[in-house]
């Protein structure tokens, strides 16, 4: 019991981060059939917002509030400058966003240095729950991320924007015929995805080492979350996140971390072979 519960908590931490990060990616993928390879940098930007604010004396909570707006700003910028002009060129989008991702990494390194950035954990210490000692921050992370994911689910199912978004994903032309401004929906969804990734960056920063290329490690994982889970539904991303997060945590306890990562990716490719639409069909 003493080892299983912390392992489950670690697993849940990874899963909630993957879902937060994968949501934006899945929505873009569902709408345009394109993976934004610069999505990892939104997460890095979120984490750097935190380290920058803390270095000038700001608090963790301020960063948690500000980071989504920073994410929205950069999301709108990237959409307006690059993505919008490549809607009909999916391979071009991948190449261009890969380039953007390299540029952002290097610019961040030039401004903040290539070393590891200092992060101060807002919750020091542990909480004792039913006699088992658990790190307080991870409990907060899982709780907060679950709340955000639940909000996204509500927006997706209940709000006008959510309906528009689902309509555009299902059939863009038909949605436009019915008066939905598809391009504006794209733009909003892209910015929202960037905000979620930046939020994920702040949440994950205290438990990982933060440096300019930290987003890349999450990019591949999140990509497999999306292809395993299928695109266009929040339930799909949640299932994908759970599968990838569970596999990675499980293998990490039993073998070399690099081999674990490789094995997870291989399994994801095999799942992709037999369920190309993902585990949850939209």
């Amino acid at each position: 019991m003493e080892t299983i519960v912390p392992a489950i908590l670690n697993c849940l931490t990874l899963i909630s981060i993957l879902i937060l990060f994968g949501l934006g990616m899945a929505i873009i993928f569902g709408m345009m059939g394109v993976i934004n390879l610069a999505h990892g940098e939104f997460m890095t930007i979120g984490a750097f917002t935190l380290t920058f604010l803390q270095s000038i004396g700001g608090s963790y909570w301020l960063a948690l509030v500000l980071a989504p707006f920073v994410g929205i700003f950069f999301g709108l910028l990237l959409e307006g400058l690059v993505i919008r002009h490549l809607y009909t060129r999916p391979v071009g989008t991948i190449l261009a966003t890969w380039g953007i991702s390299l540029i952002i990494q290097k610019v961040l390194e030039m401004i903040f240095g290539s070393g590891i950035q200092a992060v101060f954990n807002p919750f020091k210490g542990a909480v004792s729950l039913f006699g088992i000692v658990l790190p307080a921050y991870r409990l907060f992370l899982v709780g907060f991320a679950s709340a955000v994911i639940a909000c996204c689910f509500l927006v997706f199912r209940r709000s006008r924007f959510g309906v528009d978004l689902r309509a555009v994903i299902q059939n863009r032309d038909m949605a436009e015929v019915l008066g939905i401004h598809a391009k504006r929906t794209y733009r909003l969804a892209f910015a929202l995805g960037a905000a979620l990734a930046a939020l994920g960056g702040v949440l994950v920063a205290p438990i990982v080492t933060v440096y300019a290329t930290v987003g890349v490690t999450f990019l591949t994982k999140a990509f497999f979350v999306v292809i395993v889970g299928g695109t266009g539904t929040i339930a799909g991303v949640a299932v994908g996140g759970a599968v990838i997060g569970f596999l990675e945590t499980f293998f990490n306890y039993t073998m070399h971390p690099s081999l674990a990562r490789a094995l997870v990716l291989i399994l994801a490719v095999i799942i992709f072979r037999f369920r190309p639409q993902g585990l949850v069909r939209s």
Partner: protein
Amino acid sequence: MIPNRIRILFQQERLSPREKGFLSAVGVLMVLIGVYPLWGDSYGLSVVRDSLILSIFALSLDFLWGKTDLLCFGHSTFFGTGAYAMALLTLKYQTSSVVGILAALVIASSVALLAGYFLIYAGVRRQYFVIVTLALCMIAQQIVISLPGFTGGDAGLIDIPPLAFSFFSKDVTFNDDSLYFLALGLSAATFLGLWFFTRGNYGKILKSILYNETRAQTFGHNTSFHLLIAFVISAMLAGLSGAIYTVTQGIVTPDLIGPVLATEVVVWVAVGGRGTLLGPMIGCFLVVRMRQEISSISTTLWPLVMGIAFVLMVFVFPDGIVTIARWTGIHRLFRGAEGRHIT
């Protein structure tokens, strides 16, 4: 005798005057590179030699991307597999170079066969293929790093024995000069082989798949099968390039199998003009040279330059140097080498 059905696949039309001109231009270029050792210094020679070996890698990707529209964004998987197979066999098992190279070819193409079967037959194409192959080289790199006892892990392997052959019970070890000509011969052979291969009837099948896969299927071609063959050939050439490259360097590191090299080779091809075969070889020379220049100023600058190159090649130069040639009108000389936009 070769069965008639196979022979028909490689049958060639007569060379047009323009194609003859193009081939003569390539021939002059090869001769120029061939006489370069007469005045070049040893540093210059090693730069040209490495570029020639890497240009085989560029050719292998251009064959796949330019002639079948499958962009493998993790082509270093096969380059690195070839490099590691060669290094491990000759270093740890003391096999001869020939066995090492053959094993590199077999292992690289087997990996491609397995991965290609899973992906291509599952209908993974276009942007999905790009992404999954990018993941493929990340998987390969993780595996290499996770086995430090076998592959040397992050540090890689050093002291890889030089290329040597047993020829009529006489041992021949390649020195710098003979390696230079081996590199020139291999890259010239690869270029001509691929040029004639894609020009023949089999190339026409690939071209029909490139333009419209569904229509090619309607005409009775098993398109997945042909794409798989192209993928395996491409991987084999990449493995050859990797095997030769690692013996000339004497070291092998996980960089050779990772996404940095995989994406750089895409820039070589794009700079040279996708689908032209000759262009990517030139692109490889230009970019490798540029990397050396820029890295001598600052090592962190290079990824930034690569990033800008990716954005430029999508927005400004979709045909690489062919775009520039088109502005100036030089492209009329090279009609034999038709290129394709980056979509």
